[in-house]
């Protein structure tokens, strides 16, 4: 385990669960383990701590999930072209600490790092989904409210997931990460049903803003290794931050990626500009007051988020899209949380309907 924990809280009701046993058996002896009646209380912010969100990341809470595991992507909105992504919430919060991360606002009231011991119940929900539309292809990811692999070496959830999805023809699992924690995946045969995706940023963004993540080169190398192990791989250039020199740096990043992994072997690349609600921006700046990536030329947009002003943002998208298409015209690219008109401007064609794009991204 590369990430440190201060404490682990286990809800009484799940103390004998397989997940609790695995974690207790793996965690270093100096990490205190306590038992609590209700994990939700343990996940609340500690009021006397100045950075309650940051402290929450170091406090793992193993508990039962009361809400459904499967949901539509929270980024989805009629205002945006959508990729049809479904989210499987098996954990909440992340040991890494990116300055731009939306979890700083989204999880402000319950920042404890929750991991759900009853995660096998999610498989029942997935079975119902499959049966409800057996002709459709679904892409389901665990990397929305947590990093998919950050704690996999102690939770072992990744293995169970890959094995479950390996037998499901119309489901594709996306494990999204900024780590290089892939050892537990090697040696399992995903049968083409799992893709591992990495968020990639230039070195400058990584150094300035993506605290405790793996370096971009390490992420690309990890991707190359899981590809060799039989997994599909994908990448998210998201958030794209338009600092001075960004276009050159992002294009160099793409070059480095294509040098390591042939474009034809990449399932897809998504792009998305940095976007922050006013509340998120205020929180991020309070937590990272000296981060220059948080004071770019962002303006308040019609959707209530700060984004890089439109000509600059679209120019960056166009340059990166052109470079990707030049490498492989068939490599699927899409924009995250952008309007239909922005999609048309960048790609020269209308965005695909969510179900169609979703199936295309999920497909082998």
């Amino acid at each position: 385990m590369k990430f440190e924990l201060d404490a682990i809280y286990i809800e009484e009701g799940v103390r004998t669960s397989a997940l609790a046993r695995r974690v207790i058996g793996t965690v270093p002896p100096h990490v205190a383990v306590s038992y609590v009646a209700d994990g939700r209380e343990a996940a609340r912010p500690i009021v006397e701590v100045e950075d309650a969100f940051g402290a929450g990341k170091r406090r793992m809470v193993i508990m039962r999930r009361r809400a459904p595991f499967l949901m539509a992507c929270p980024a989805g909105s009629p205002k945006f072209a959508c990729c049809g992504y479904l989210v499987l919430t098996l954990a909440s919060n992340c040991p890494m600490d990116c300055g731009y991360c939306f979890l700083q606002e989204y999880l402000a009231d319950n920042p404890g790092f929750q991991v759900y011991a009853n995660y096998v119940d999610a498989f029942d929900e997935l079975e119902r989904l499959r049966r409800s539309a057996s002709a459709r292809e679904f892409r389901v990811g665990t990397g929305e409210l947590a990093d998919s692999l950050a704690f996999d070496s102690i939770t072992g959830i990744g293995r169970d997931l890959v094995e479950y999805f390996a037998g499901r023809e119309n489901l594709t699992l996306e494990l999204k990460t900024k780590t290089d924690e892939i050892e537990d995946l090697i040696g399992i045969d995903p049968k083409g049903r799992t893709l591992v995706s990495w968020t990639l940023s230039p070195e400058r963004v990584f150094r300035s803003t993506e605290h405790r993540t793996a370096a971009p080169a390490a992420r690309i190398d990890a991707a190359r290794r899981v590809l060799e192990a039989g997994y599909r791989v994908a990448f998210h250039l998201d958030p794209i931050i338009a600092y001075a020199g960004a276009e050159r740096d992002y294009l160099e990043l793409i070059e480095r990626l294509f040098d390591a992994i042939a474009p034809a072997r990449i399932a897809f690349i998504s792009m998305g500009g940095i976007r922050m609600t006013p509340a998120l921006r205020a929180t991020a700046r309070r937590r990272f007051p000296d981060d220059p990536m948080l004071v770019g030329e962002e303006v308040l947009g019609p959707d209530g988020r700060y984004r890089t002003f439109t000509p600059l943002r679209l120019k960056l998208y166009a340059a990166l899209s052109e470079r990707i298409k030049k490498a492989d015209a068939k490599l699927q690219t899409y924009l995250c949380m952008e309007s239909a008109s922005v999609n048309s401007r960048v790609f020269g064609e209308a965005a695909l309907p969510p179900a169609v794009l979703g199936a295309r991204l999920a497909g082998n």
Partner: protein
Amino acid sequence: MSRPEANGAKTDDAIRQWSAARHLPDARLRRWLLLAHEDRVALLELAETLRLRTGQFVTMFELIEEIALRERVSNRSINVTIATTLARGEIRRILDASGSAPGRARELIDALRTIRFPRLKRVTARLAAEVAALRLPGGVKVVLPKELSSDEVRIEISAHGGPELERLIDAVAQARMGLGRMADLIGGADSLDDEI
């Protein structure tokens, strides 16, 4: 000669008085008082000289802090602070000018925005020049999105009677190439390279 800490205490008292009179939010006051002495003084001088309203002060404080951070990163050999930012020629010129305080406050916010958002300001100026070059008649207005926050261009036609409306529509039709170019610029067209 008074001791530096006595000066500091005097400054802080003046800051507290100004903040109380303007109902400055506590969090903002705390941030002000946490600054280095010369930065605290520079902001107080700004607030008093231009007789700033609370909202104007908060906007300026934020812009100046962001400018200082951005410039510290782009040139690590220079110690850019709030005080040095306010000492810049284009800022000092506004502070020392003789116009009305509200007018200078507006001018200063605009100047700070130009420094804080240099590429946005260049693109906005380019688009404004493109609109002017179209020489559209008075009843036709090209409305660009505020701070170029979207890719929408709106054209408003105000006419009184059929003949005037026809004339204005014809003018818009004649300008269609230029209007199209402008819409492309908002979409990040390559010809913006110099500005971006």
